[in-house]
């Protein structure tokens, strides 16, 4: 139920005041309309999509750094274990 998957905002199709904000998002090659009313997303942003709504932006830099941080975490700990 709480499954959410990343997608890239490629087009903002509706952005009027008082109307649900809609965008076209690319899910790894498949384009689909999503609702972006819950986030401040711009074209090019990665978002996490759940039940047709972007629920949060995906921090690209943070994502790229995650693996590196994990390696560091694991490497620096042997002496503590």
């Amino acid at each position, binding site marked *: *139920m*709480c*499954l*959410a998957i*990343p997608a890239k905002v490629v087009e903002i199709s509706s952005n009027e005041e*008082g*109307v*649900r904000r809609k965008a076209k998002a690319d899910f*790894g090659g498949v384009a689909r309309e999503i*609702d972006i*009313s*819950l*986030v*401040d997303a711009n074209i090019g942003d*990665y978002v*996490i999509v*759940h*039940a*047709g*709504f972007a*629920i*949060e932006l*995906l*921090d690209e830099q*943070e*994502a*790229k750094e*995650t*693996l590196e941080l*994990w*390696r560091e*975490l*694991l490497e620096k*700990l*042997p002496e503590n*274990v």
Partner: protein
Amino acid sequence: MFRYQSEGLAKQIVAKLKDLKLTLRLMHVCGTHQDTLVRFGLNSMLQEAGIEVRPGPGCPVCVTTAREIEEAIALARSGKVVATFGDMFRVPGEKQSLADVKAEGHDVRMVYSITDCIAIAEKTDRDVVFFSIGFETTAPTPASVILHNPPENFSILSTHRIIPPAMEALINMGELKIDGFIDPGHVSAIIGADSYEFLSSRYNIPQVIAGFEPLDVLIAVYMLAMQIRNGEAKVENEYARVVKPEGNEKAKRIMNAVFEPCDISWRGFPVIPGSGLTLKDEFVDYDARKRYEDELSALSSDYKEPAGCRCGEILRGLVNPDECPLFGTMCTPQHPVGPCMVSREGSCNILLRYGTM
């Protein structure tokens, strides 16, 4: 795009966990974590390192009560169009599911998003009810829809629940000693890491928010093990690429504008104070429970769980699915007895699908 699957790194993490020589029982409260744990065989890897990860009440479909399903069924029988997510479709109430009611000729629709339900309402003069389930991940979506002037023939039957009070209830029930929580990544995307602080400070319990790739979960377990080894109890965030300390402020504002907390029972649990979300009075027109009070007035206040079904105990982390006498025999995905066998996030369904804990 971003993949976090590396067998080498996974083996390294498990080796380090083994070196720690701890015996731990952790709990997660998210069906998608259960899927990752079982699908990638992480449970058995972790068991070799002395670590057991039990699923708690993390499947929203599973914790929805028989009475709530009976409410949806009653509305369908009274001629409303009832729409809901696919996972909810086949969960039995006391005897029947919404799928059974549809087979009888009533109008029940399966939708991917509440926006599909709005599209249905816009094309018909009939009343359309969205059977609105889900944790904090999902609750902002009906809230947003309601704030954007949905059609007058549209309403929701809210069964939304919030996770931290259920975690607190589990601790207070004291049936199971839990050494640490793996907190749910997408619930946390909305509510933020800070929302769990009270549990660590009040109950001295370590917590790590985790993403859903196999390495996300293994690293979270490792972080929990390190907290426990170091005698710490705090909230750490492994899923920082999505989860912020404060969460999604905009989504929270929208959710809190439309919903207010209420006391609600969860399947397998007594009433948990403040763990449900009900529509505020100003949105009464969109509240199916108030709007169709007459149609719902004949419902009993107490519905029995199916005989022999152990979903309640499974949701409290007390038993594994294969300890239920109905598992895989009387209760299968084709002929489910309890909700944990229906939902793809239910522990029974996941175990039967992948074949091993």
